[in-house]
Each structure stands twice: as C-alpha cells, then as structure tokens.
C-alpha cells in the first residue's frame, strides 16, 4: 500500500504509529501500527469502541504523551515535519497553532475559574504577540463566528454560565482562534442533543470550508461519520481494521467488525420488528490481545476461513475487492458475498434486495437498476448463486 501518488499532497501523514504504555502487568499496546494520511480541507472519521485506541492516537499527534511513561514510535508528518522528532519546546509552539483539539466534554476541558474570554485570550496570546485588548477583540470575533449571541457580553461569562451547546461552541472557537491547519475533534458531539449536534456539525463544516483545515473527527456514531467524513478509519484493539473512502466503506464494508457496528444500531426508518444484531462478547484486553486476528473471538464469520487462519495469523491491512483505496484487515476471501447474502438481509432487507436485483442478471431488473448499480457493484455481480458455500470451500 505505497501511496507514492498522494504523498506530495498529504498534509498530515501518520506512519506506523505505536503508543505503548508500560504497566505493572505488561505493555498495553493502545495503538499498534497505525498509518493514515489526510489532505487539507478533508475530514477523516475514526470509529471504534472505547478502548480501541482512537483517542490515544490523536493525542499522540498533539504530543500529549510527552512527559508520561508512554512509548511513542513511528512518524507523524505534518507538512513533512516529523512531530515526534521535535523538542518539547518546539512542539509546545506548534500545539494550538498548527494542531488544535476539541474535547468531548467542554465542562471539564475548560477551566472553571477563568472566564471564557480569558481562556480564549490566553490561547491567542500564547502564539501571537499582541496586546490584551487586541486579543480580546479577536476572542469576541471568534465567539461571534461560532454563533454565540451577544459575544461582547458573553465573553466575560464563566464556562458554567454557558449551556452545553454554547460551551462546545466556545471550545471550537478556542481551537480555531489561531487558524490551525489540523483540527482534531474527539467525540465533539457525543454529550450533546441531536439538534445541537446538528448545529455543531454544520459549524465545523462551515469553518472547515472557510479555513481549509484538515479535520480528524473521532466518534462512535457512524451517522456522524457518514455525513461528515471523506475517509473513514475503523479501529479495533489499537489497529486499523478497515480504511477507505466513506462512500465506499459504509456502503460496501468488507470487515465483519464494521458490519457489526452497522447492524447493531437501529435506523430511524428500519422495520421495527427486526432484531438488532449485536456484536457478541466484549472488547478485548489490550494487555493480552487475542491471537491471530484480534477480532476473531467475537467474529461470527471466522469459521468461513479455512485452516483456522483467524486464530493463528494476524491478517494484514490490504486492499479489498473494491480497489486500492479501500483497505481491510480480514482473512475472509469473499467478504462482499457474505455481506450481501448473510449480513445485509438481516438488518437492512431493503438495501439487500436492491443489491440482489443489481446482481441477478435478470433483464427486467437490469434495466431498472442498471445505471444505479454502477461499476463497483459489478464486481459482486453475476455470482449470486445458491452454492456460495461450495465456492467458499474451494477457496
């Protein structure tokens, strides 16, 4: 998976990032060999359960593991400068200026003793040699930009005087006050109500367009990813298990863990009689990750891979059936078949029959679904025979 063609235009490139925490019980491999890249003006969505290493990886980009016992290795190239090689002082100068972060819970991320304005002013003056007055003007301007009413009055309020949505806006204002090229949003809307969430997501997109920043959005809500991200990275047990363009990955996912995530959330339009299909079991311990594929103890499809490969061999992150841009870490030889015939019909029969119509070479259906099916569906087409089990054994 050499990305020579895109190397020059990647704004952020993370190569083989590892964050290990030595503990009394052994080494916790919170992030273990993560690679991705992100261009300016684009959004990457990182999805996964708690403890999958999403937050740890992004704090590493910000250099937040410095001064702890964490062992960070690999490369984090921001405009070809390796952030891991910088001195603490150089990193401090970049933090907030080039890379900024929005945290999940603004009430605990903001200082309760300082006014919102003071905290914004501080964030600005750390990186800009301006007077307090000019910084205050800038703070008010940013509060106005993120949609806080009467910013000249609210700037002197304390965080507890803001509502949840307003606090999150204030935090976004703080993150963006220096126009950073990279903004990391760690579960920016998880604590918010849906209508406020929609406002915040709108705001993030508007600001991204305005400042052409790259955004990493960490979330467990696939709906948010579907609407916000250009690329999706699915993490499990510290590793990327699927990585690709949002459109590709969420429509034709190839990794059973991603299937599990998709099938375990109900849809507001789904049939109410259908059961949710949870992922069995619990997330693995990062101290003693399972042998072979880390997901195999919870994977309902592991028996379809011959030779107990899932138990013994860790799969590589390789391009799937949909082409080079879509990587997956799974041994399943025919994921699109399993998905279309076994997984999809259970949680979204509508989409499954739509897909099936596109697959069966029936002239009537072909005419109807022909243009909509597109070339990508064509890879899966023509093989919708009932004897897929035999095919599987042969492979």
């Amino acid at each position, binding site marked *: 998976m050499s990305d020579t063609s895109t190397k020059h235009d990647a704004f952020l490139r993370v190569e083989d990032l590892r964050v290990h925490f030595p503990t009394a019980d052994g080494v916790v491999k919170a992030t273990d060999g993560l690679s991705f890249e992100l261009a300016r003006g684009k959004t990457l969505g990182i999805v996964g*359960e*708690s403890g999958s290493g999403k937050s740890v990886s992004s704090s590493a980009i910000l250099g937040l593991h410095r001064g702890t016992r964490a062992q960070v290795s690999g490369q984090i190239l921001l405009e070809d400068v390796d952030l891991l090689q910088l001195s603490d002082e150089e990193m401090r100068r970049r933090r907030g200026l080039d890379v900024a972060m929005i945290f999940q819970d603004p009430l605990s991320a903001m200082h309760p003793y300082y006014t919102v304005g003071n905290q914004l002013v501080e964030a600005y003056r750390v990186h800009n040699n301006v007077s307090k007055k000019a910084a205050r003007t800038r703070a008010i301007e940013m509060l106005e930009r993120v949609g806080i*009413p009467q910013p000249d009055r609210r700037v002197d309020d304390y965080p507890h005087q803001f*509502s*949840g*949505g*307003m606090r999150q806006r204030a935090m976004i204002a703080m993150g963006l006050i220096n126009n950073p090229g990279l903004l990391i949003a760690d579960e920016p809307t998880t604590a918010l*109500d*849906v*209508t*406020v*969430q*929609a*406002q915040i*997501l*709108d705001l993030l*997109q508007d600001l991204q367009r305005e400042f052409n920043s790259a955004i990493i959005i960490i979330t*467990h*809500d*696939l*709906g*948010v*990813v*579907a*609407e*916000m991200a250009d690329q999706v990275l699915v993490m499990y047990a510290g590793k990327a298990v699927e990585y690709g363009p*949002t*459109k590709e*990955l*969420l*429509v034709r996912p190839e990794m059973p863990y991603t299937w*599990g*995530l*998709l*099938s*375990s*959330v*109900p*849809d*507001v*339009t*789904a049939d*109410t009689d259908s*059961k*949710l*299909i*949870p*992922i*069995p079991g*619990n*997330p693995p311990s990062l101290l003693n990750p399972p042998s072979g594929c880390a997901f195999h103890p919870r994977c309902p499809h592991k028996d379809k891979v011959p030779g107990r490969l899932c138990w013994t061999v860790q799969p590589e992150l390789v391009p799937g059936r949909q082409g080079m841009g879509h990587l997956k870490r799974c041994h399943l030889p025919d994921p699109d078949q399993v998905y279309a015939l076994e997984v999809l019909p259970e949680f979204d029969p509508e989409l499954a029959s739509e897909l099936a119509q596109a697959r069966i070479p029936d002239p009537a259906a072909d005419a109807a679904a022909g243009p909509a099916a597109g070339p990508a569906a064509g890879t899966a087409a023509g093989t919708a025979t009932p004897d897929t089990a035999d095919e599987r054994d042969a492979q």
Partner: protein
Amino acid sequence: MTTEPVDELKPHPETSSLTGTPILEVEDLKMYFPVKSSGFLRRTIGHVQAVDGVSFQVRSGSSLGLVGESGCGKSTTGRLITRLYEPTAGRIEFDGRDIANLSERELHPLRRDIQMIFQDPYTSLNPRHTVGAIVGAPLAIHKVVPKDKILARVQELLEIVGLNPEHYNRYPHEFSGGQRQRIGIARALTLQPKLLVADEPVSALDVSIQAQVVNLLQDLQREFNIAFLFVAHDLAIVRHFCPEIAVMYLGKIVEIGDRETLYARPNHPYTQALLSAVPDVKQAKVGGRRERIRLEGDLPSPINPPSGCRFRTRCPIAQDICARVEPPLLQVGPTHKVACHFPGEVGKHPEKPITPRLLGVDDSGMPDLAAGPATDLPTGPGYSDTWFDLEHNTMGRA
C-alpha cells in the same frame, strides 16, 4: 362546533400495538422545583417547571417512549412515576390506584411493582457490595424468599440477564459497562415488577453493547410481560423499542402517537426538527449532509418559559397566536395527538391556525367573542374515538 362523521376519510394505521389495558395512567402531572434565593432566609423566588401537565398511558406489557432534549423533563417524569419525587400536582394511577400522594409507608408494597433501571451503570451500583448483595437486597427487604433461598434466586436472575451465575461474589468494578448494566437490570427484575422505568438504559454503553442490552430488555419484556416507560434521547433506539412514543419539550408533551405515524408523518415542527437532525448512516451513499430543519438558539429556561407555545421562540413557523395562546394537545388521528396551532407534515403546515374556533380566539390569538366559547377538549391521557380532522377542520368520529 359541528361534529360530522368522516368515516370514509378515516386512515387505517397499525394500531394493534396500542390496544390493551393501561397499567399506568398519568394525568396532568406537574413537578415544580422551588428556586431559593441565596442568603440567610432562602426564600423561594421562582419555580423550575420541570414537568408541567403531562398525560399519558402505559399499557400492560407494552412500552411508551419518552424522547426530548436534555432539560425537557423526561427523566423527571420517570422519577415521578417511581415516586422518587412527590409530584406538585396531578394523578398517577397505577393498577387502578392513585399513587401520586401516597406516604412512604404506603408506597413500600408498590416498590415491588415499579422498578427503575438507571442510566449510568458506574454510579448506580454500590462499589462496596458484591453483585449477590446488590441483586439480592430487594428480596431481603421485601422478605419475598427465606434468607437461605436468596442466593439461588440471585443466581437464577444473573443467568436470565446473561451473566455467569458463579460471579455473584464479585464486585461491580470487576465487570465491564455492559455487564454492569445487566446487573442493574437483574436488580430491577428481582421483584418481578409490572412496570419498569428505564432512564436512558443504554446511552452510556458502547454501540456494540447497546444492541445486546436492548435485545435483552425486549426478551425480558416478552417473557415476563413487563410494561416499560423508556426514557431516552436516541430517537432510533426509542422507535425500535416502543410502539408508542411521546415527544417532550420544556416540560410538556408536544406530540404523542404510535411510532409509525410519529416517525413517518410527524405534525409538530419540533418533532420534525428532531427527526431531521439525526445523522443517518445511509447518507454515505449520497455524500454530504442531509437536508435538515435548523433550530435557532438554545432551550429557554424552564424557570421563565415562553408564553403561549413554549416552542415558539425556536419555531420556524410561529405566528402571533403562538405567543398568546397555548396550543392544546389535540388528537388529530386515531392514535396521534399534537400540540401545535399549525399542525401538518413537513412543508404542509396550514397557513391559518386550526385551533381558534376550539379555543374561542381569532387567528392572531386575541379573545374573539364572535368565535363563541371555547370547546371542551378532551385533555386526559389515552385516545378517544373522536378526533380533529385536519383536512376538514372539524371534529371527526371513528
């Protein structure tokens, strides 16, 4: 007010799920929390109108979902039902008996029948008690089984909720979030309640675990015929779980109905905004953001709620009447009620308010003698067999 039968226009939604005898009936329930002044005297200077006149029914073995944003009073409603608070006013009729003002002693036997599942499995279990003690405590308190039989019953319950019965000796910290929530569910099931109030039972859990717990609750409901009051802010989960759903805004129910109608044809602008704000995975196929109804501003303070309709300050279709008169919760279908002067599907809201004739006011909400006196509108819980026909602007009859 003429009452015309409009048989041929009667829609035929799936109402089978909304039949059955109500086990819980709530009428005009109010909870005002006093706001005290600072200083020595601590005088009451106002009230937080957390719940302000809600009415609904929960049918035996069925579920009612309460949705709304934080601060809308849905959790307070749940706590009133379990009588963790004493309501300021209103009636809570459980199994034919008003429990709104019962004393602690009188409530004791009722605690068996109404149980609660809490949101946060990390703070709702005592860390210094073993799981066996936590789940067995209700049995000991209510002296349901002799002391030496408690352990056997606890193990049985742990097995029902999908935990290893051998683990009764462990402490809560030894379990994961999903497992802890199962312990909370086991505790709530111990006394075989008829009604379970589930306050955001899955929102603290990971997505993959959420589905496990939702499925468990559904299985338990079917097996033990438990009625649920399901309080949550996740619209998709509530729809999945509850055949009937009430949407709350600032202490009031703004729309209530069967899930098919409410999600497919919501009539209140707030419900519409709420539904349009849910991010949708299917959007990945299209790319970009979904069209949505944007709500301006924040939730107003429940200490000083807006006059008239409480939603009007953020409503995209509000007019003068909305500030002057509060819209009644009007039944507009066999199992569908909405509190709006301009009820209608998205983009099809009527230009003129439909309520003036019922309320004895003119179109801008001023008292109007010509319009005649206000009609007596049914305000109680449940649905009647007459409702307001939106197409003809008259009361119809089934």
